[in-house]
Structures are given as structure tokens and as C-alpha cells.
């Protein structure tokens, strides 16, 4: 009875704590400017199903794609087991679905095989990150917390899977002993090999079984609450992120309505721009970005596929699209913490540009869209880079001097070079 109360209290506390943190994340995302992504719901749904659910963009890199798919399927399917754990925990039952007979055996057997798959995949992931030191995971933005974060996640998953398998091994052994409460249920294709590692004594087996059961469920609840602090949020955000992703051609940049109003007013004196302050042109800080950009930042799992294909990064420039996303999230979290304390959010003298993302990074971008194409969950670092450039150029008139002269040429001669408009058609006359 005490364990049932403890279980219910823990579950409620974990869900409540997660909800509070999730609410904060949603509040932070809402700091962003509006963006209308309510069009084409059918196409959005298909995109989500294909890209997030079907992981179609992962296959470009087949090895991590296969390993990731195992972990993903394992995560989704083994969580069916959590349903049983929840019911058992609340009602003090044991293997409540055991009555399903051969179907139950099939399920538990399947979970065990998946658990082994997840275990092996996570070990390989750890090797890739820490022993093989793949270039993608060795960037300057992946030191300190982001590096530990990735390792913590992989370790936790390995521990959870180990606990699950040990629990089954102890359970099966108890079933054989005919221990009271341990009904004969389940098939154990993997954990049967662990049985010999366990003691024969019934009391110790019960302790191991219970210990692993509690570790497994507490581990899952703790993992849920770790998400808001981690890059691992993508397991939830991948779905809305792909649903609300850009459906227009990648080459198309948004036309700023605030600018359209100003330009129309300049060209046509009879045009009256709508009332109200047009606001800042471009983005100086996170609240100048759209909520889609901000959701992108929470969704990023720092895999670095964007940075690995970025022509600027490949050739040794400072720019890393992954860092753009990480910086955006870090700044958002900083602003969020100020808000939590009841402070004024954007009066700390800091901003996304300069304090997080430098001009050198911004101006190294070729706007080639390789990062956008490479992202397995449709994150768009280029949209953020563009908005920061807009701020630098339109609000501050700050750009590399050659860019300023290019802009001056367009303004004066209608071409980015210093040629006379009168000579524009000379190509047809000269040979």
C-alpha cells in the first residue's frame, strides 16, 4: 500500500514538474513575433508524418540512420510497457497484462529484443562521440555542457535498458522458483542469458526485481523532466517543428510587410501605411525572431548535420549553423530566467547579435540552404541569419564595406557593380 501511494505521488510530482517547465518553454517561444503557418494543413500533416514519424531525411547517413531508428522504435514501443508499469504501480498488481498469454509473450519478447538493440546502438553512439571522435561531434560549440548532455542521455538510455532486462531476468527466475506474486508470464529471449548472473536466493531476486522496476520507472520520469534542460527535447518537438516547417521553396525569403508599407508610401504618396509602430527591422534579439525560429531552437538536438555540410564551416570559417540554433536557445533561456524572477526581460544590456552570434559568423553565410536541406527535422538556421543581417544593415547600417558599396551601386546604377545603366544593353552590340 505504501509503495502504491509513493508511486502515485512520484508520478504526479513528475508530471506536474514537467508541465511547469513545458509551460515556461512555451512562454519563451511565444516571445517571438507572429508567423502564419496555418495554411495547407494536409500538406503539413504529410510532412510531419514523413519527416518526423518516418524519419525520411535521416537516410542520407545510413549508419546513424539505422542506429537512430532502432533507438526511436525502441523508445516508442517499449513505452507500451510503461502502461503496464503504471497500472501495476497504481493498483499494486504484477504484470497485469500477463493474462494476454501468447500475445503478452510476443510483446515482452519483442521489447527485450528492442531493448538489446537500443542498448547496442547507444553504446555505438557513445563510441562514435568519445572514442572515434567523429568530426561532427568535435566542433567548438560542442564542448562543456552540450558534450556532457549528449553523453548523459546515452548513459541513461543504457541504464534504463539494463534495468529493464535485469528486471525481466529476475522475474523469470522468480517465476521458475514459483515465488508468490510472480505469475508465469512473458517470454525472455534476451534476459534469459542474464539469469545466471543473478543470485539463486528468492529474497535477493525480489530485491533485484523490485529495485530494477523502481529504477526503470523513476528513470523514465526523471528523463521526462530532463528534456526541458537538454538537447533531447527533439523527441517531442520534432513533431510540431516539422508540422509548422516552411513549405515554400527554400530559395524564397520572406517579404517583410513592414518594409512593403514604407516602400509603398515612398513610391505612392496616396498610399497610407497602417497605423502603429512598424517595430524593429530585422532581429537584434530573440523576441525579434518569429516563434517558428524559436521553436526550431528548442527542437535542435545538436546533431551537426547542418554544420557538416555548411560550405563556410567546411572551409574553416567561424560560422556553424548548429551554433546559431544553440545560441538562439541559450539566449532564450537566459531571457526566460529573468522572466522567472519577475524581471524585465530585455533590459540586461545583452542581445542575440554580438553577445551570442558575431558579425563574422553572420557574414560568412552563402545562403546556400545546405543546412536547411540537411536538417532531419526541418530546422531553418538561415532564417535567423537573414533576420540578424537585416538588423545589422537596416537598423545599424553596418555591413562589410564591400557589401555597402554593392548596395550603393544597386541604389545608384541598378546593378551591384559600378556600371552605367546606359551600358546595360551593350552586350548585344559588342562582340
Amino acid at each position, binding site marked *: 500500500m505504501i509503495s502504491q501511494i509513493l508511486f502515485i505521488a512520484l508520478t504526479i510530482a513528475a508530471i506536474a514538474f514537467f508541465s511547469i517547465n513545458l509551460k515556461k518553454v512555451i512562454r519563451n517561444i511565444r516571445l517571438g513575433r507572429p508567423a502564419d503557418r496555418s495554411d495547407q494543413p494536409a500538406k503539413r500533416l504529410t510532412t510531419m508524418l514523413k519527416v518526423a514519424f518516418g524519419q525520411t531525411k535521416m537516410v*542520407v547517413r545510413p549508419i546513424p540512420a539505422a542506429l537512430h531508428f532502432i533507438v526511436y522504435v525502441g523508445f516508442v514501443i517499449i513505452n507500451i510497457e510503461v502502461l503496464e508499469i503504471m497500472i501495476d504501480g497504481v493498483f499494486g498488481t504484477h504484470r497485469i497484462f500477463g493474462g494476454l498469454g501468447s500475445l503478452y509473450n510476443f510483446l515482452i519478447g519483442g521489447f527485450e529484443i528492442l531493448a538489446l538493440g537500443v542498448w547496442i546502438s547507444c553504446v555505438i553512439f557513445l563510441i562514435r562521440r568519445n572514442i572515434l571522435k567523429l568530426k561532427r561531434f568535435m566542433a567548438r560549440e560542442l564542448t562543456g555542457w552540450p558534450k556532457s548532455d549528449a553523453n548523459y542521455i546515452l548513459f541513461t538510455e543504457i541504464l534504463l535498458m539494463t534495468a529493464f532486462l535485469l528486471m525481466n531476468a529476475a522475474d523469470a527466475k522468480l517465476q521458475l522458483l514459483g515465488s508468490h506474486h510472480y505469475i508465469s508470464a512473458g517470454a525472455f529471449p534476451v534476459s534469459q542469458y542474464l539469469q545466471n548472473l543473478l543470485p539463486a536466493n528468492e529474497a535477493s531476486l525480489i530485491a533485484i526485481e523490485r529495485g530494477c522496476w523502481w529504477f526503470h520507472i523513476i528513470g523514465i520520469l526523471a528523463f521526462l523532466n530532463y528534456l526541458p534542460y537538454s538537447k533531447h527535447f527533439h523527441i517531442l518537438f520534432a513533431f510540431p517543428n516539422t508540422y509548422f516547417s516552411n513549405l*515554400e*521553396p*527554400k*530559395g*524564397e*525569403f520572406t*517579404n*517583410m510587410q513592414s*518594409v*512593403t508599407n514604407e*516602400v*509603398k508610401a*515612398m*513610391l505612392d504618396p496616396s498610399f497610407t501605411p497602417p497605423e502603429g509602430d512598424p517595430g524593429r527591422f*530585422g532581429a537584434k534579439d530573440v523576441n525579434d525572431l518569429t516563434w517558428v525560429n524559436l521553436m526550431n531552437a528548442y527542437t535542435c538536438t545538436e546533431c551537426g548535420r547542418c554544420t557538416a*555540410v555548411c*560550405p*563556410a564551416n*567546411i*572551409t*574553416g*570559417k567561424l560560422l556553424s549553423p548548429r551554433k546559431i540554433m544553440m545560441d538562439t536557445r541559450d539566449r532564450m533561456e537566459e531571457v526566460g530566467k529573468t522572466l522567472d524572477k519577475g524581471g524585465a526581460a530585455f533590459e540586461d544590456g545583452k542581445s542575440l547579435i554580438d553577445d551570442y552570434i558575431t558579425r*563574422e559568423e553572420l*557574414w*560568412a*553565410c*552563402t*545562403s*546556400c540552404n*545546405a543546412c536547411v536541406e540537411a536538417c532531419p527535422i526541418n530546422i531553418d538556421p538561415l532564417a535567423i541569419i537573414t533576420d*540578424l*543581417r*537585416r*538588423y*545589422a*544593415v*537596416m537598423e545599424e547600417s553596418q*555591413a*562589410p564595406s*564591400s*557589401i555597402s*558599396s*554593392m*548596395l550603393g551601386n*544597386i*541604389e545608384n546604377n*541598378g*546593378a*551591384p*557593380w559600378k*556600371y552605367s*545603366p*546606359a*551600358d*546595360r*544593353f551593350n*552586350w*548585344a552590340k559588342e*562582340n
Partner: protein
Amino acid sequence: MTEKLNIEVPTMAEMMARGEEPEILFWVGCAGSYDERAQKTTRDICKILHHVGIKYAVLGTEESCTGDPAKRAGNEFLFQMQAMTNIEVLNAYNIKKIVTGCPHCFNTIKNEYPGLGGIYEVIHHTQLIQDLINDGKLKAEGGESFKGKKITYHDPCYLGRGNGIYEAPRAALEVLDAQLVEMKRCKSNGLCCGAGGAQMFKEPEKGNKDINIERIEEALETSPNIIAAGCPFCMTMLSDGVKMKDQNDNVKVLDIAEITARANGL
């Protein structure tokens, strides 16, 4: 084979004065108008249009920058000023269909002008060539033979990833009976030449290599006779790369339009 332009290029103004309307407007672009190397491509596009008998016209001195480099550099004001001025000209001439000689102009007019009142059917010149081949109006005969030549095609970002056009330029090369080889990074995974996003107009940031060198090394790995391009900026970056690698005598960088014109003896 000659670069000489023996044909009259009709302007919209002349056509309007005659009370005529073209089937298609050829949007030349700044590079195509002023850059010596790109001018050759421009003239070849005209030759192709003339050869197949399409009624076309150019804006001539009435054309102005689409605003693309301004927009990518972050100057939305200047972009929209350019866009609205151009749209006024295009709409005054009642333009319905446009072919561009540059993927940047193509992307800007096709995707970014409609929201500002400029709604046209826009194609890139490689799509025009593909259409003409499909309709049987254009072949690869009567000119230089590319048989057996090794050609590798470099995808311009704003044509490929930007707008999903990967097949048209390749279709234009397929009729040549040449040997088409792909670079390691091609199509949606293609590597930028280094000129996009207004980089064309500035020195690169500090790094350990120039992007066009990285790209040209990859192109040279396919040991091509010809590197095919579809963008005047890529053309500059790739040609510079070939020069830097001292491969001028072995490898030519040619636009798809130039290759098509040569193959047809135009």
C-alpha cells in the same frame, strides 16, 4: 561556334512600338549584362531563342537589378524598391512569361515578386532548353560534337536546393551523347560555389580555404573535360578555381546555354 551575335535582339520598347507582344521575355540580369564572361552566355541564350523561332524580347536599358543581392545581404528596403520598380515596368508591358539567365534572378522573380504584385510564369534558361528538347525543337546537331567528353554539372544553390530543379540542366546535357559524371556532393547535397548570399561582392571571412577551391577540387576529382554551370556567379567562382589549379588548358567551364549553342552550331 563564333561568339559574334549576328542577330538583332529585340527590345520590349521596340516591340510595343510595333504593337506586338513577345511569347517570352528574356530577363538578362546584371551579370549577364555587364560581366564579360556571362555576356557570352547571354548571347548564346539569344541565339537559341532565335534558332527555334520563339518570339522573345529583352528589356535592354529598362532592366534593373532584381534586388537579389540586396535581399540576401539584409537590405529589404532596397530589395523592395528594386522589386516594385521592376514590377511596374514588367506589368506595364503586360509580361506573362519570363526566362532568366541566372538562378538568382529566377528565384527572386518567381518566388519573391508575386507577393509584391509581380505574377509571372518564370523559368530558368536550362528549363527552356529542356522544354525545347522535349518538344523536338532543339537537338544536338550541326555543331561541335561532345561525344565521349566527360562533363560534370555543378548545381547552383538557387536552382537546385532553392527551387528543386535538378533534372532540367542534366536533360540538356543528356542529348549530347557525352559522358556525364556526378561529383560526390551533387543535387540536393551539392556544395555551394561560394558566391551566394552576396558573398560574390565581398572578400570571404577568415578560414583555411576558399569555398570555390574546395568545390573545384571535388570537380577535378571526376577528371572532367568540361564543368557545366547554370549560373553566372558559379561561372566566375568555378573559372577562378580552375585557373588557381592551373587546369585552364585541360578543363573548360561552360554554361549549359553555351554547350547547347555549340552543339547546334549556333
